[in-house]
């Protein structure tokens, strides 16, 4: 159920809307604080801490807060799984956007381009299988792997987008927010080696 909700929100509406929807469904009040005392939250959520000035997030409806003290992510069971599903949804949206971009540029017929897209499709299927298997014996580590794979797949897509993936607004922005979510909430530094 959560899979559908998060991914459906993430795919058409983008990262900020997906984060707002996630909070609305999972966090009735307050914010979820990551291991470093940071949070990514809807703009209208009240919290202590220090808002971080990120010009590229202006107007998106979400914000980043620092200096929040002890992490609370452990008090929100399923948060990392929800985030992974959200991020996979964003990754799939990025795949669609990249495909549209490449089609528009007349590049979609190139075998090198198709092969790169296929690698991402295969990676998304692998991640989706991992996230759907609630019986996995090592959910925490497997989840971190899934997050990392999503980041790597996103980076591969951005390489296909050229400068179009580097503008605000643009498909690269959601990928960047997606990495930011991983950065703030994952328990170690394995966020993106793309």
């Amino acid at each position, binding site marked *: 159920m959560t899979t559908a909700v998060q991914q459906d929100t993430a795919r058409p509406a983008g990262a900020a809307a997906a984060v707002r929807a996630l909070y609305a469904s999972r966090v009735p009040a307050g914010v979820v604080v990551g291991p470093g005392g940071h949070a990514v939250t809807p703009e209208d959520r009240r919290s202590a801490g220090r808002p971080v000035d990120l010009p590229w997030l202006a107007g998106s409806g979400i914000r980043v807060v620092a200096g929040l003290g002890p992490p609370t992510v452990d008090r929100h069971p399923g948060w990392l799984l929800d985030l992974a599903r959200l991020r996979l949804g964003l990754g799939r949206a990025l*795949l669609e956007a990249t*495909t549209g971009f490449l089609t528009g540029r007349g590049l*979609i017929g190139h*075998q090198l381009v*198709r*092969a790169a*897209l*296929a*690698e991402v*499709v*295969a*990676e998304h*299927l*692998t*991640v*989706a*299988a*991992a996230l759907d*298997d609630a019986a*996995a014996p*090592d959910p925490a*580590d*497997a989840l971190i*792997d*899934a997050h990392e794979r999503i980041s790597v797949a996103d980076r591969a897509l951005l390489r296909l987008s050229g400068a179009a993936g580097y503008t605000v607004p643009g498909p690269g922005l959601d990928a960047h927010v997606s990495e930011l979510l991983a950065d703030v909430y994952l328990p170690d530094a394995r966020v993106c080696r793309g």
Partner: protein
Amino acid sequence: MADRLGLLRDQVRDWAQDLRPYGDALDRDPGVVERLLHLPIMAWSARLQIPAAYNPDPLVLGGETFYLTGSAERTVFCAEVARADLGMMLALPGASMAGTLVSVIGDEAQRAWFYGRLRERPTWTFFGLTEPGGGSDAAALRTRGVTRGDEVVLTGAKRYVSNAVRAALGVVFFRSGDSPLSVGAALVEAGTPGLRVAPIETIGVRGAQLGAITLDAARIPADRVLGRHRSPVRRGMWGWLRTFNLLRPTVAGMAVGVAWAAYDYAREHRDALSHAGRESLEPTRRRIEAVHRMTVRAAESVDRDPGNGAQASAAKLTAADLAAEVTRDVLGRLGPGARVEHPRLERLARDARALDLMEGTGNVQRLSLATAYLRSLV
């Protein structure tokens, strides 16, 4: 993994242990497999992969019945046997790829004949598709089948055909004209006048004993042409594509098995790992687990819709890459001279290379998957 498939996995894993001691011997002498027919895994491989209508003796485990005809069951089976030894996996007797094609496009009489032959005794089968110079490209197929009365005369050549040397029967793809609809396949017996088989030496999977088949006006009864009861669009290429869709996850399963085998090897030889090589194997284990899970899902997907092989392509290309990566990684962990000091691992690395080639190379799968994605099939 669903409990039902878990039952099968556990049983096959147990049986497959019998094969491990013979892997090296098989690598040196493909004939070794013929001396292992008393092993349960051999007997069951020969007797399964036959549809319920023709098989009164399926495998029953914990009240569940297995015929090993679906892609998911076969994928689980292949992964476990390959985890013991990929060469052995490819050298097993039974219906194998030819059986899948017969089940997809064969008529009642053809199925009864083919499966009846397999039930008589452990029998190897071959799948004669690939041609010299043309690979497995349907458009490039050059073997000709010309109907003369109640016979079809086959002329052409096939290459890299697994078990060709020891097989008693199999299928041969041919074309009867120039259009895509003229591609067909026929059941052919070893010993047919005009059919010759020669072994091909390979670097890895030597147990599969690849062969080259030459067809020099080989005459077969016309009723051995598969799918004669079907319309031209529902045989040949149609059956071929469905057969490959069903088989591709099994190759992915084999690749996952090889990756597990290399991982197992590293764990069993922990003391031999170099200082740098002792870095945790946990990420490797989790990656294999994730690809294994995705592979079984792909097999279940193609069981539901054999016409859509997109997930099967994804599984095959991902798992084949994984097998190559993990075997190389474990060799690296064992330090200089690992290929000399660890012959089983060296064989695994050789065997893993074959997985990229089987049922379409990784690059072919990438292009197929991209096309499927662009058509919203995945």
